[in-house]
């Protein structure tokens, strides 16, 4: 038996089938959580926001256009929620101390790769909220400049300036001599 499509699951979820929506969550929870984690850089908050994303998605399911793809849509909902969350806090997120647990037994190369990943995450987390979300939408969700402008309801010129400045800052942080 073939697995049901996202569209089938959405139709069933609209009729109140919790298991159908649960299956959708299972399919996209890692993607959504990683969107939140890249923007927030704090595991607990990222998991809470990922949960909120799916709650919001469920509440908006009736308005969801079945011709669109669910995955990209729910990831954009997550990015917007994270931006609103950061703007409501107006403080930079603290670094997640739990993420480096259990490093002692990893081979050296894996540890190096992990450290580099953490440097990139740290550099992303140091950016202003709007820059972070623009980088997320461009690099990880592969939206065009126009799509980002429409999604965030900001002018195209702001999208470009946020993105280019963000990259400049990231390059300075990541390629700076030790």
């Amino acid at each position, binding site marked *: 038996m073939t697995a049901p499509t996202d569209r089938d699951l959405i139709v069933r979820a609209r009729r109140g089938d919790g298991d159908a929506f649960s*299956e959708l969550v299972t399919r996209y929870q*890692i993607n959504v959580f990683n969107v939140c984690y890249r923007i927030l850089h704090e595991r607990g908050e990222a998991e809470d926001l990922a949960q909120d994303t799916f709650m919001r998605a469920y509440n908006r399911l009736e308005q969801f256009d079945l011709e669109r793809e669910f995955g990209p849509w729910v990831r954009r909902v997550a990015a917007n929620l994270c931006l609103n969350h950061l703007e409501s806090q107006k403080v930079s997120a603290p670094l997640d101390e739990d993420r480096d647990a259990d490093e002692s037994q990893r081979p050296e190369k894996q540890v190096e790769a992990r450290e580099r990943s953490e440097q990139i995450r740290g550099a992303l987390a140091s950016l202003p909220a709007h820059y972070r979300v623009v980088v997320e939408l*461009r690099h*990880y969700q592969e939206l065009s400049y126009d799509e980002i402008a429409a999604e965030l309801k900001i002018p195209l010129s702001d999208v470009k300036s946020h993105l280019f400045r963000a990259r400049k800052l990231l390059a300075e942080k990541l*390629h700076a001599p030790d």
Partner: protein
Amino acid sequence: MHLTDEQLNEYLDNEIPDRADIESHLASCADCAARLTVLQSLFAELDSLPDIALSTNLAVRFASTGQLVPQLPRWLTLTATLQAALALIALVAAAPFVMNLLPAIETPSFTEIFFRIQSQWLNLFTTITNYQLPNLPTLPPLQIPTLTLSLALAGASLLWLVGNGLLLRKQIR
């Protein structure tokens, strides 16, 4: 003249129409080519960021509810709200007319209604208390030997224990 940062970014993002002009300049300008390489390596680093695992399964919350409250279509919600609003307006508009008609209708007082309910309840209570069950045929007393009764009780207890053991076996594991 060198390429601007904006041009280099737009070139890598595929957001620039005249790519050939940029490419011909890059082929002849080492400075701009080097700046492009730095930007490309940043792109590669951002792309290399791995996904990390969740520490909890977010789907459980939705699965445990089994049946979520079905969502009403938007048009139905709006229609129902509109109907409710219209009914409220009609009620307010009709209130003066209803107030004029009310005295013409003979309505029992609250005390009268209360006494009627009370007397009906008393009637019902009297009927129930006076009700007598019909005489049932009497059965001859059972003569079960003590040993048989003890064995039957022991067997039933054993069956009960085995049955529960079988039912709980999976949970204990």
